[in-house]
């Protein structure tokens, strides 16, 4: 009945707002590209090029046309999937990114799963034991995760768990020995190796993934813990919690059957944001672990001024956040009957 109509109306409205946001994002990346102090022509022709060569390239890039015309071309290129060629590698930018993105997605997904599995129960536990020692213990633990510079914990963890204890793999996505053993079909090593039935490669990849993912997860769990704690405290002060207790539910039942359902929407929001920033790439941890991910790709291109690559990266980050917002909205509708 009217329910499904409302939902449909919401979805159409959402689609419209997504298109507007995407357009805004394109304008933004376009102007970032124009306003950056880097000279794209100089980056191509080099310092010693003659004036004629410079002019020629300047014209070839369309830089002598009016700005709005350049924007239209830019939009057309983006919509047809042409993101330009990387100056550094000479390959289409999108191809380079498709190569680094799976590595980052793999890392970020594991990290956020670890962060949520660690942070949510700890936050609830802290809230339930507010101002008693478990609360303080959780606070110290999560503050530690939040305050330690990740490159430092990364190096210490490598020394301890890799060099000394030899429990996990070291840097890179898998042992040197296995590189090139499985075809890169999806780019996700875990999936590719499973598909090829190469279990050794799979375990090696997982072994390499677990340490950086745990460190990133620990660091993002700090935030998730703090937020879960305060969301939970907020709910525990609500009257419906008293109602549940009056009915004869135990504290644990009240928390998990009643209060927790009411913090899911808020949790989705902060976890989606945390996931988004992990997908942006974790430059520091990628550097320490020699992880060929999105973060190091973006940073290195920024430094050398490879604007096609940088703009595309910014565009992708924007799209990631729009996607995550959309996902959170859908989850809101599932979790909270008031939003339907």
């Amino acid at each position: 009945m009217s329910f499904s109509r409302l939902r449909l109306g919401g979805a159409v409205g959402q689609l419209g707002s997504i298109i507007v946001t995407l357009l805004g994002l394109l304008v933004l990346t376009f102007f970032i590209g124009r306003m950056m102090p880097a000279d794209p022509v100089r980056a191509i022709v080099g310092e010693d090029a003659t004036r004629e060569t410079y002019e020629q390239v300047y014209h070839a890039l369309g830089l002598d046309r009016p700005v709005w015309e350049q924007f239209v071309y830019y939009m057309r290129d983006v919509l047809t999937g042409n993101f330009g060629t990387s100056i550094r590698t000479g390959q289409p930018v999108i191809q380079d990114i498709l190569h680094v993105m799976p590595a980052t997605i793999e890392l970020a997904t594991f990290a956020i799963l670890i962060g949520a599995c660690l942070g949510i129960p700890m936050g609830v536990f802290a809230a339930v034991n507010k101002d008693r020692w478990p609360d303080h213990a959780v606070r110290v633990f999560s503050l530690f995760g939040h305050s330690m510079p990740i490159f430092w914990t990364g190096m210490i963890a490598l020394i301890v768990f890799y060099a000394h204890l030899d429990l996990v793999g070291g840097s890179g996505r898998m042992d040197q020995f296995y590189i090139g053993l499985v075809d890169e079909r999806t780019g996700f090593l875990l999936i590719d190796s499973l598909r090829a039935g190469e279990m050794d490669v799979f375990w090696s990849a997982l072994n390499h993934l677990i340490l950086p993912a745990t460190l990133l997860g620990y660091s993002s769990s700090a935030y998730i813990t703090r937020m879960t704690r305060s969301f939970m405290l907020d709910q525990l002060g609500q009257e419906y919690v008293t109602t549940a207790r009056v009915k004869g539910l135990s504290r644990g039942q009240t928390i998990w059957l009643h209060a927790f359902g009411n913090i899911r929407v808020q949790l989705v929001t902060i976890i989606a944001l945390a996931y988004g920033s992990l997908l942006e790439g974790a430059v520091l941890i990628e550097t320490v672990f020699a992880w060929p991910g999105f973060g190091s790709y973006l940073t290195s291109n920024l430094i050398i001024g490879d604007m096609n690559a940088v703009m595309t990266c910014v565009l992708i980050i924007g799209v990631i956040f729009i996607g995550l917002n959309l996902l959170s909205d859908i989850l809101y509708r599932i979790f909270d009957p008031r939003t339907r």
Partner: protein
Amino acid sequence: MEKTILDVRNLRIRYGGASTDAVRGVSFTLGRERLGIVGESGSGKSTIGRALLRLLPGATITADSLRFEDVDLLALSEKEMLKVRGRRMSMILQDPKFSLNPIRRVGDQVAETYLRHFKCSRGEAREKAIAMLEAVKIRDAERVYAQYPHEISGGMGQRVMIAMMLLADPDLVIADEPTSALDVTVRLQVLNILDGLVRDRGIGLIMISHDLNLVRNFCDRVLIMYAGRVVETLQASELDSAQHPYTQGLLAAQPRIGGSRAPLAVLDRKPEWLEEKA
């Protein structure tokens, strides 16, 4: 008043970190009757209700006696208390807008009381809940069962609350300002439903309120509380012959339709009211 359901003697309650007791030496007994507890905000009336259910985290409750039927409420373990709450003693909270879980169907919330205390299937609990919703005069109970709290009105919400709290057929119900959040027009309707059920099932009722007229009409006896103490206990019918100056002051401060338009009397609080009787 045949059998004593509740025997409270010298009840004292202190919140954690407070320097004085919120409830100071309250004593009363309750049979199968309707007892009103009246007092201003902060007089300790709601605190007593929650203390009976032992739902005051961080507070210290002491009493010479806190007997509920055959059990000593202070001696029960938390686990034993879980079997008392909802099953033998329950409480109707003030505002259904806050006291119902916003993301669960109201019917499921009602049925939960039954599921908690009786071994039965979900379907059975659902039937019981629907029958109870009909008992609180909700038309089309099947439809209301599937609705969420934000989809029903305040009066309906409070009837759902009553259904939830009476479903397991308790012996004592505490109604903590059950109609303060409702429109005046539905207030009477809800009270009549509650009153009818309480009488039919022979449930002991403690009605906590700040509304003297409401208590006068719906209760047998009234405790007047001031600053954590009971200053006077009266039959509801004899409220007008109250002796204590505080009660007299409260009665004098009530406006009357058709009464004189002169400014109402203002309570003149005397410090000696705070002192405990020897």
